[in-house]
């Protein structure tokens, strides 16, 4: 170490929770975050799920335990530190205990991202012994009615039981609540519930529109007034409740006039390995046209991260078009989300239409208007389940997907 630097500019890099937990500076040359989407099978059928609507193609070709362990080793060598084990519902696999134990040996800080369905005393005991660092539990509402409606399952009582189990085993309680039209009016009660459960962290994740949530956008999107009120209540809770709980309020991009710096930059800090082994820079990258993503079954992760055309495609800003190319704010948001641009405009290199300077911004304004149109909003929710996924693959729900430039 250089002595004069002792104590100086102490923190080089702070990574906080946003964009699904990812944020950092650009110029990072290593993946810091590995998300293992170990299965797309799921006992819940949430209307806002960001998984691909055609996930049914990937429920029969999941990676084996050995392939996952190899992927963890290879990513760790590249520098990955934070591991998210997600899905679908990861607990539907019976080898999570082995994966967790290997992650611990390798020095990951590991996080099981779960609905809680399938978590038993026996399994949580094995996770604790294996060195799992924390468990992120999804909660949906304070009311049984909304929980069961939006997940299309009867899981309300179970979630409360699982929350107590997590706490009982000395884990930090990290709750994730996806916010949408059906629960946004219960913000204060949701925060009070989380506090009463002893949560250390709560992420209030306003729905972002990808996968199933894009198909259900008009049914889920709250109004601007509801969002503002939710944020006000959250701030008031922070100031007045005296709770030590850390609250992350993820602002919905449709209601801001600049796009999010999606994944903190393409191929900057975040790497996903999907159930079938595809290696992606973001959750929904497979919607992009003319892209060949590497797969751990046939290519080395180091090559995928450093050399693959897919990971290099949108690194930096050389690929940008106007108005982004000459925009003074381009480094702040890197032109937003490539998937959102493509899904909504048909051009992956266009400015994210969320941006008020985008020539396609009217598409966002229209989506907000549509969500308040009682006729459109009254269309039934397409719940995330195998039957609907098969229907979408077969083109049977075209009326709900044809307005987008790829299958969400």
């Amino acid at each position, binding site marked *: 170490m250089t002595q004069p630097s*002792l*104590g100086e500019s*102490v923190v080089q890099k702070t990574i906080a929770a946003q964009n699904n937990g990812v944020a950092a500076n650009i110029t990072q040359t290593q993946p810091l975050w590995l998300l293992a989407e170990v299965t797309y099978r799921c006992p819940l059928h949430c209307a806002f799920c960001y998984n691909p609507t055609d996930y049914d193609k990937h429920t029969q070709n999941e990676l084996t335990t050995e392939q996952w362990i190899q992927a963890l080793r290879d990513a760790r060598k590249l520098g990955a530190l934070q591991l998210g084990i997600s899905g679908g519902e990861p607990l539907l696999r019976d080898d999570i205990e082995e994966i967790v134990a290997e992650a611990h040996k390798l020095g990951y800080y590991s996080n099981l991202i779960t609905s809680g369905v399938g978590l038993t005393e026996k399994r949580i005991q094995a996770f604790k012994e294996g060195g799992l660092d924390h468990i992120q539990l999804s909660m949906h509402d304070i009311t049984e009615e909304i929980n069961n409606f939006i997940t299309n399952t009867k899981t309300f009582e179970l979630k409360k039981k699982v929350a107590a189990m997590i706490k009982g085993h000395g884990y930090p309680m990290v709750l994730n609540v996806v916010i949408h039209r059906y629960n946004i009016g219960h913000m204060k009660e949701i925060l009070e519930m989380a506090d009463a459960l002893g949560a250390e962290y709560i992420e209030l994740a306003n729905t972002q529109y990808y996968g199933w949530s894009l198909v259900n956008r008009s049914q889920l999107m709250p109004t601007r007034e509801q969002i503002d009120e939710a944020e006000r209540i959250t701030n008031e809770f922070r100031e007045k409740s005296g709770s030590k709980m850390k609250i992350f309020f993820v602002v919905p991009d449709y209601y801001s006039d600049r796009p999010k710096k999606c994944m903190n930059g393409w191929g900057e800090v975040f790497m996903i390995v999907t159930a079938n082994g595809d290696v992606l820079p973001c959750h929904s990258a497979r919607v992009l046209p003319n892209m060949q993503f590497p797969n751990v079954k046939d290519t080395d992760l180091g090559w995928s991260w450093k050399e693959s055309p897919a990971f290099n495609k949108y690194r930096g800003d050389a690929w940008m078009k106007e108005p982004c190319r000459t925009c003074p704010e381009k480094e702040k948001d890197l032109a937003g989300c490539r998937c959102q641009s493509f899904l909504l405009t048909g051009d992956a290199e266009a400015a994210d239409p969320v941006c008020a300077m985008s020539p396609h911004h009217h598409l966002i304004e229209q989506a907000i208007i549509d969500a308040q149109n009682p006729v459109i909003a009254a269309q039934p929710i397409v719940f995330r389940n195998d039957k609907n996924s098969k229907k979408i693959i077969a083109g049977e729900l075209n009326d709900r997907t044809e307005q987008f430039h790829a299958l969400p």
Partner: protein
Amino acid sequence: MDQTINHSDVFALALHHRFQWEEAQNSYVILFPEGMVKLHGGAGEVLKRVNGIASVGDIVTELKAAFPDAENIEKDIIGMFELAFSKAWLRKV
């Protein structure tokens, strides 16, 4: 909560936080749910001595001995404790 750092204070890493050396980053890091912090060399030198036993004063003495040429080292060390405590990476024991 009183955030003043005294020489007699003893700190430990906050619950659910992990401090480790990262070869790929060539630095120490603190890991916790939903995030991480990458530390400069100097900050890492302070935090690696935090063990729930050594007092702030002990750590100052040790670092002064280890880095005799560093000027104002004590002020920097206390600054580091203030930051780490205010960010809740450390807890008082």
